[in-house]
């Protein structure tokens, strides 16, 4: 791994931390808070690719685990990570990896549609599969019930997929990093 790769990994870990500083937007009617932070794993995968993207989120999670308040709302430490929503936090590393893998595969024929589908698959399908399984175990409810409970958050995640897709394509045009890695 080159020095540049390590710096990029650190950069996206830091970017994910900074995204947590933006105040959450509360969706009308449902009252579900939407934070910008989960954009971080989507962007890390879509811009750095599977390996560097995944490692950047692992690095971010290590810093949260050692006690830095880097999660949105100034949260951090082991308490949040192994709490009820821990699956959604650990799942971010998998999100970045899966999004990166799909974007790498599609790199030469990347367009709005397949980029959005890749990011939605990693950032929603895979993430919720892990997060809901964790909730189901922690709360002793069925997987289906956990899925229903998580449904209101989908609106916010759909918005984030759209933002990450646009950002991924814009960065690909002006500062492509995945093809360089080969």
């Amino acid at each position: 791994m080159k020095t540049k790769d390590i710096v990029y990994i650190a950069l996206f870990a830091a970017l994910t931390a900074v995204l947590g500083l933006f105040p959450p937007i509360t969706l009308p009617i449902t009252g579900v808070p939407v934070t910008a932070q989960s954009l971080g794993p989507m962007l890390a995968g879509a811009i750095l690719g599977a390996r560097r993207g995944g490692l950047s989120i692992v690095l971010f999670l290590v810093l949260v685990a050692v006690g830095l308040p880097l999660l949105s709302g100034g949260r951090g430490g082991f308490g949040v990570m192994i709490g009820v929503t821990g699956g959604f936090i650990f799942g971010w590393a998998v999100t970045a990896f899966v999004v990166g893998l799909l974007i790498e595969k599609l790199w030469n024929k990347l367009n709005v549609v397949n980029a959005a589908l890749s990011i939605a698959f990693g950032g929603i399908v895979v993430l919720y599969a892990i997060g809901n399984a964790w909730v189901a175990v922690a709360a002793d409810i069925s997987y289906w019930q956990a899925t229903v409970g998580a449904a209101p958050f989908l609106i916010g995640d759909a918005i984030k997929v759209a933002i990450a897709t646009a950002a991924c394509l814009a960065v690909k045009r002006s500062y492509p990093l995945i093809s360089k890695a080969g």
Partner: protein
Amino acid sequence: MIAGLYIDGASALHRATAGIKILAMMALGTGVFLIPDWPVVAVVLATVIALYPISGFGRHIIWAQIKPMIWLLLIFFAVQLWLNDWQAGLLVVLRIAAIVLFASLVTLSTKTSDMLASLDRAMVPLKPIGVNPEKVSLAISMVLRFIPVIATVASEIRDAQRARGLDKSILAMIVPLIIRTLKMADDVADAIDARSFDLD
């Protein structure tokens, strides 16, 4: 540097090594999931709560750990009440509370630097599979340096986009932020290489 969640003290828990506390946390986390009786888990939770004043953490600190999860716990209790009975609800709530409160206790009583030191030790056996502790340490220190830099760049971009009437657009914020910081990352990498920092 960003302040960690550690709160200073001199208790036995503060003096215990980070590795021991993390192992205890894993043991407790696994243990309460294996215990099917709520009274036993209640005793575990009471013990964990008792550790707070023993370790010098006051009531408001305990409350600060419970407060963020209280609604979720109430919802889980209600769901169990509806599906099963109140004993099942109590078991779920006590279990989660015990794990989270103990995990928070570990974070509160362990310095970030001590956590990082035990991380360094934990990485040594992983060397053969390609984990390089020096690279990880370099990456960690860069993240801590990058966070304030990115936050500053973000506020500069926000000002610039406000002048263009684009301050409401997240995309007009995030794309220049990524591209500017990627350029910065390239310069940092060049600077590290120019100083012959040996990574292998």
